[in-house]
């Protein structure tokens, strides 16, 4: 708060009210409601409920389909995060170096940011189409008979490809702006000290990008956990069946389609705890992160 603030008493309350009311009704109420439901077992029609304590959580821990989905989510998140960060970093380093066409490249590489995940999923469906998808044809060159939506591995592969495609632009924007904020003097000093370009990159540029990288790491994990919902929903073609799904998608499938309110709420609570842990971890990193400039 500013030293020279205003002293009116009711105006600030009036200003804060709309936000607080909306948050109370649409954030705290549902969060509390979800927490409560996770300890109850509801009948499918919502007429009665029984308190089961941690029963829903125990059921989840013993459910093979939940554990399978959790395992898939971990692998999926690691792959998407790693690949989209790595590819975006390569592109950003190149885009930072070229002079001619720099602006055009920047535009071409970032606009996909605005494509909605489910639309990206639909594009993936077309690219991997069984009868004439260009990427399916490409896979066929290696003798790979690609069947999206039927084969578990193939569907997972398509999900990763589409999710990475969709996430590269955000990472690219952040890496590029991180690179451009490295002072010219530092670059010139590095140029004098080290003749090898890759040596300069790993010794100077990469450490300077570390803060951006940490931030993006968390953003990308959050992205692969939550924002990929649309991609997954379109890629499984509405038939989750044997297809891979992430934990967030499972919350939706079990709760909304399967009507298992308690089980689905328990899954939500587990995700909430996961996100909270990640945020705490992120703040810790930010506190410790070293500023070079």
């Amino acid at each position: 708060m500013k030293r020279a603030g205003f002293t009116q008493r009711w105006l600030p309350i009036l200003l804060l009210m709309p936000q607080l009311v909306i948050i109370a009704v649409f954030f705290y109420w549902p969060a509390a409601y979800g927490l409560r439901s996770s300890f109850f077992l509801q009948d499918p029609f919502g007429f009665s409920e029984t308190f089961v304590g941690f029963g829903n959580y125990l059921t989840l821990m013993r459910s093979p389909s939940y554990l399978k989905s959790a395992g898939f989510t971990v692998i999926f998140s690691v792959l998407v995060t790693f690949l989209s960060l790595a590819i975006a970093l390569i592109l950003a380093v190149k885009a930072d170096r070229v002079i001619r066409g720099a602006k055009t490249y920047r535009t071409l590489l970032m606009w996909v940011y605005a494509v909605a995940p489910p639309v990206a999923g639909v594009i993936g469906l077309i690219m991997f189409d069984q009868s004439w998808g260009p990427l399916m044809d490409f896979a066929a060159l290696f003798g790979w008979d690609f069947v999206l939506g039927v084969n578990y591995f193939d569907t997972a592969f398509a999900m990763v490809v589409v999710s990475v495609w969709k996430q590269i632009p955000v990472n690219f924007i952040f890496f590029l702006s991180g690179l451009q904020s490295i002072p010219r003097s530092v670059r010139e000093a590095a140029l004098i000290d080290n003749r090898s370009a890759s040596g300069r990159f790993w010794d100077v540029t990469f450490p300077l990008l570390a803060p951006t990288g940490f931030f993006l790491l968390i953003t990308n994990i959050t992205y692969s956990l939550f924002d990929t919902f649309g991609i997954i929903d379109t890629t499984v073609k509405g038939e989750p069946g044997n297809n891979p799904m992430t934990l967030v998608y499972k919350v939706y499938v079990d709760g909304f389609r399967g009507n298992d309110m308690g089980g689905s709420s328990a899954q939500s609570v587990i995700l909430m705890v996961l996100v909270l842990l990640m945020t705490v971890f992120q703040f810790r990193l930010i506190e410790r992160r070293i500023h070079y400039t």
Partner: protein
Amino acid sequence: MTATPKRRIKWSNVVDHLVLIAGSAVMILPVVMLLQMASNPDIETMRNGPGLTFGDRLPANTTKALFEASGFSGVNSGVQMLYNSFILGIGFAVGKIVLGMMAAYAIVYFRLRFATLAFWMIFTTLLLPLEVRILPSYEIVQKLGMLNTFQGLIIPLIASATATFFFRQFFRAVPEELVEAARIDGAGPVKFFIDILIPLSRTMIAAMFIIMFVYGWNQYLWPTMITTDEDMYTLVRGIKQITQSLEGTNLPEYGRANMLALLAILPPVLIVIFFQSWFVKGLTESDK
């Protein structure tokens, strides 16, 4: 890249360009193919799939996409979905910015007894995305009778603090002398807010608007749950139905479906491209 006679071609430079061109192609080709399929007769697409030979059916398919309705009730034409998408995108962006600025102003510029409490209540919302509390949120919207309404669609999405946080950071960086000067000149808090702070934040507001518009336009899970009436569908929400109509029919309407997908992409993409510098500034500064 043309080499001037006196200068040698630098190979590392060529490699840089090749990598960037490959990257750009991967980004843009799929969408070019959407456009290509939208420009061909359906039978052509069914036989050959996506390619790079453009046909002349673009106007016909666009008309079909805009005015022909699919689904059971025949009310979700492209125009209707476009309209709903704009309401969601603009309503969400405006709502978020207005509430965020008001709350941030109260927190930064006033001496409030429970300021810390309000601050934490608001900022806790940054921790939990809507996706993790999706079902209880749905039940509550249902209890409030807001299913299939724009309020039910937009307001729960606004219940997070990203914009408040962003404007709080910005207001704190505004020089303190401005408030003092305004107070000496006899300007009250309302006048100061409207005549000084809002004009000062113009660029920030624009940046926020672009990011929030794209975010709102691209919402999928929440609209999927809240809107079941077909006349409430947004383009992004309707996309699944569009693709499902591609399967199981003798001659799927590829042209129309791909045109609708393009319509869903186009407005946010154009905004991001045209207001690129604001957008990049807003994105890289807000998230830190």
